[in-house]
């Protein structure tokens, strides 16, 4: 795959990809973009092995999720507490800002797989089959994580 072709495909996918990582990073936009860039480089290096058996976006999201897992593991080892700047758009109302803050705080409390399943299902409108492929788990397990994630979020978010 040529660089230009790859960038064309990324142009379409960059927004959902960044949003997915933003949810995984609990609203830390700088970290999410950093992981997204790493994932894109990794994907480009491995683009020769992309056979088109799945959708490009599914393949890319899977790489991004693996990058996030790697980063998460490394961060847990380093354990340097950094005050993240939550990605709440400046022009949002106080009410919306509060909702985002609530959302990110709730997401932070979710285990990684539940968070990923919730983010893909609700924020990216992915099917269970696609989520299973991205997270590399059976569809039944995805449903289980989704259900558990919903139950947990109901406890954490006051509606």
């Amino acid at each position, binding site marked *: 795959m040529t660089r230009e072709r790859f960038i064309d495909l990324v142009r379409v996918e*960059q927004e959902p990809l960044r949003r997915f990582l933003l949810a995984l990073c609990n609203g830390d936009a700088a970290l999410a973009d950093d992981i997204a*860039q790493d994932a*894109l480089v990794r994907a480009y290096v491995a683009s020769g092995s992309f056979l088109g058996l799945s959708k490009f976006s599914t393949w890319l999201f899977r790489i991004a999720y693996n990058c996030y897992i790697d980063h998460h593991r490394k961060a847990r080892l380093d354990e340097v507490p950094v005050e993240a700047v939550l*990605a709440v758009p400046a022009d*949002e109302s106080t009410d919306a800002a509060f*909702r985002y803050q609530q*959302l990110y705080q709730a997401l932070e409390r979710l285990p990684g797989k539940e968070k990923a399943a919730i983010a893909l299902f609700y924020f990216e409108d992915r099917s269970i089959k696609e989520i299973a492929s991205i997270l590399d788990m059976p569809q039944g397990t995805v449903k289980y994580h989704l259900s558990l994630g919903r139950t947990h*979020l109901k406890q954490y978010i006051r509606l």
Partner: protein
Amino acid sequence: MKEIDEFLRENKPALKDDPTFLLETRRRLEQVEGIKAEVDRQRSHGRVALIIALAAGLALGVFATTVAFLYPVDLQSVGDGFLQNVRVFLETWKHYLVYPVAALAVTLSLVLTLGGKKTARL
């Protein structure tokens, strides 16, 4: 549960517009291509060096064998009986020579294994 569903669908994480994101991606991909090209260049250099070494080894081997066949040497007269003495020595002491050779092999394998582990940790 329906409330949570609605809350999540209505509050998708909001992305800030970042026009530099794709520019940064392009810059990183260019760097990757630079590294790839350098690795490929070094690999092809290595391959050429290997082929040259193989060809040189083959040519030298053929040359040495040809010389050996064309100009046979009487080793006994050249070595003044030295090689014959070595042969007799090995014949006589071969049962005892096995032990130091085996000990040396075990020591070497231990040293190389431990050295390899140290390198792998780096």
